[in-house]
């Protein structure tokens, strides 16, 4: 049994257990900061281990480590680290989170990493459950707040339903193909050449289950309520790591075992992508709460990212990966900004609370503006390159309809992003925010710089994404 490819995951799991025990022995009031610091250290250490981890298939075809898995694991870990830093800032500003928060984030990250390098549908499912279950708990962790409890319960019930669908799809695939291992699935599908209806239904159910985790339309209903209700650091986490993991799975399954069925599933992904983009931008317009706005925005972003996969080519996968990396950067920055929105120690989340931020806190307004422009896709911000690559891939794949929908929804999206900028600079201030915690300032400043100077790292990221895509497609 070759377990070396899974070495980073093993280390992270053991670190998680140790950190949990450390947290339990510390005093309740002062356990959050050391536990968070340890969690960040464990995640950073794991990121280094991932960089140097061995390629190959381990643990009896259950676990695959390749360039693709490594790329996504780094994205997932970065998302986890940034969310934990935001959580530290949130608590410092008076938010009430127990020490289990960073530990659960760690376990959720671990589940997401397992998903990213699953070599078997069972690993996929267990990783997904580990990742989701932690997030259900995280959503409701401020249990005194009614909205948080509502968010947790809603996400739990709908998420369980989606897991059930996914499992049903897996069982259908297993029933018709007789195996759950990706390489074996590939060879069986190749050899038989025919495609039973049950298998197609199974694949559709798997796509549906994953699309739910991605909050892609029409499986997005939970997103706004959960994003709004969950504590801001948790929302920041949810919008990052699990989405990357769900994308990792979707890409790995669609490009791997079901790769030769691309003409069959392509239309499904095109429809999901187009609906997500359109709905994400249209439904965001009437929103008054910034967290709800970001929820619709993330629905739209998932649509764009899926555009690359829908074009079913190596360039498309590369585009999706670059898009996700850009999304990670700007998303973490925006949520650090939202976590800093506090007046007299109370969190405010209305968009009009940002009014006059250009006068009261010019630095924060500037970084938020950078993120908004990046989300629109204005060059030379990070978002532009992601959008450019997925649009180019869709163009090369001849998906003109999808391109038009993407262009139109990008224009509509520009309206609501620019409205936030307009409110920050041209509306009269209603009072200033509290001084943000240093960690929040750090995250939003560093992510702002990363968004603006994304072009510097573009070469590295693109070649890494290229290597990742070629690990799958060959």
């Amino acid at each position, binding site marked *: *049994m070759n377990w070396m490819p899974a070495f980073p995951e093993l280390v992270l799991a053991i670190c998680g257990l140790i950190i949990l025990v450390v947290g339990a022995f510390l005093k309740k009031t002062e356990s959050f900061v050391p536990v968070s610091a340890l969690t960040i250290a464990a995640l950073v250490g794991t990121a280094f281990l991932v960089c140097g981890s061995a390629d190959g298939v381990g643990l009896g075809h259950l676990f695959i480590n390749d360039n693709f898995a490594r790329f996504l694991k780094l994205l997932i870990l970065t998302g986890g680290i940034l969310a934990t830093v935001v959580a530290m800032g949130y608590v410092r500003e008076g938010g009430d989170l127990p020490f*289990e928060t960073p530990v659960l984030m760690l376990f959720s990250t671990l589940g997401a990493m397992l998903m990213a390098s699953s070599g078997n549908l*069972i690993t996929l499912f267990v990783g997904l459950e580990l990742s989701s279950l932690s997030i259900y708990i995280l959503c409701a962790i401020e249990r005194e707040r009614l909205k948080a409890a509502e968010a947790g319960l809603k996400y739990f019930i709908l998420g369980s339903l989606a897991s059930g669908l996914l499992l049903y799809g897996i069982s259908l695939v297993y029933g018709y193909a007789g195996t759950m291992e990706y390489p074996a699935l590939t060879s069986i599908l190749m050899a038989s050449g025919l495609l039973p209806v049950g298998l197609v239904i199974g694949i559709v159910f798997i796509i549906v289950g994953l699309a739910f985790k991605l909050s892609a339309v029409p499986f997005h209903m939970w997103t706004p309520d959960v994003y709004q209700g969950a504590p801001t650091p948790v929302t920041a986490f949810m919008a990052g790591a699990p989405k990357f993991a769900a994308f990792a799975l979707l890409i790995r399954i669609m490009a791997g075992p079901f790769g030769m069925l691309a003409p069959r599933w392509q239309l499904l992904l095109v429809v999901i992508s187009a609906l997500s983009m359109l709905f994400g931008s249209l439904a965001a317009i009437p929103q008054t709460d910034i967290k709800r706005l970001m929820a619709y925005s993330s629905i739209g972003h998932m649509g764009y990212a899926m555009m690359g996969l829908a074009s079913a080519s190596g360039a498309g996968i590369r585009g999706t990966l670059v898009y996700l990396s850009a999304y990670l950067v700007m998303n973490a920055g925006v949520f650090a900004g939202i976590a800093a929105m506090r007046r007299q120690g109370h969190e405010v989340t209305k968009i009009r609370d940002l009014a006059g931020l250009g006068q009261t806190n010019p630095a924060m307004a500037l970084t938020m503006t950078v993120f908004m422009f990046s989300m629109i896709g204005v060059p030379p911000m990070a978002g532009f390159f992601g959008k450019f690559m997925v649009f180019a891939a869709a163009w090369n794949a001849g998906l003109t309809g999808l391109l038009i929908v993407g262009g139109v929804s990008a224009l509509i999206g520009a309206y609501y992003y620019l409205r936030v900028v307009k409110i920050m600079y041209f509306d009269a201030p209603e009072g200033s925010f509290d001084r943000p915690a240093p960690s929040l300032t750090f995250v939003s400043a560093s992510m702002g710089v990363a968004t603006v100077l994304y072009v510097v790292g573009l070469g590295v990221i693109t070649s890494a994404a290229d290597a990742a895509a070629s690990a799958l497609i060959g």
Partner: protein
Amino acid sequence: MTQIVFYVFAAVLLLSATMVISARNPVHSVLFLILAFFNAAGLFLIAGAEFLSMLLVIVYVGAVAVLFLFVVMMLDIDFTKMREGLQRYAPFGAAVGAVLFAELVMAFLHWHQAPVRVMPITGGLGQPGGPHTNTAALGNIIYTHYLLPFQACGLVLLVAMIGAITLTLRERPTGRRQLIDRQHARRREDTLEMLTLPLGNSVVDNGGFRRPDTYYGTAVPGSWGVPEGEGGKVVKAVPAEGDHA
């Protein structure tokens, strides 16, 4: 014949599963659930997976007991009323029992051990000298072949436990906790004060029950005679009226 048994089990399973969600009485639902579990176990049995079938019965009997408890606790069912309807339910229960019994007989008649059937699924199981019984094959699959998901499932359960604790544990400030070190440090003088009372006077006449002064300094707030939140303030249980003799 085995096919007929299969269809009987499958039909009863589907029927009882439908009844679980359509029965109006929650107790009926639970009973149908048990019937459904037994039928699923029967299906396993005729497929030659006797270990799984026994596991299903053993595990789910426990689970159903818990579910029953939940039904009792969470739903507002008047059980005295229910007991009145015992005669009404008796034929129903007897019917479920009869079906179960008939099925058990059928299942045992058609139970054959078939470890060969699980072989094609797993690599390495078909090797000569490999595990041959059903249970050993399952053990090999779960603990060797699927070690990673098995351990990950352990983490899932751990997370569920963390969640259950964080979401429900409430630290009540009024909780009386045993402080063992303080108990050990207690001396007789701290708790007991010898008073010489004049003949014919009761304790009440002498200012009521009271504890030695040292008690009030060390007692946990909220304890007897010490108000919530502020320790060390003497409150006499029986306020003295008039002068202390």
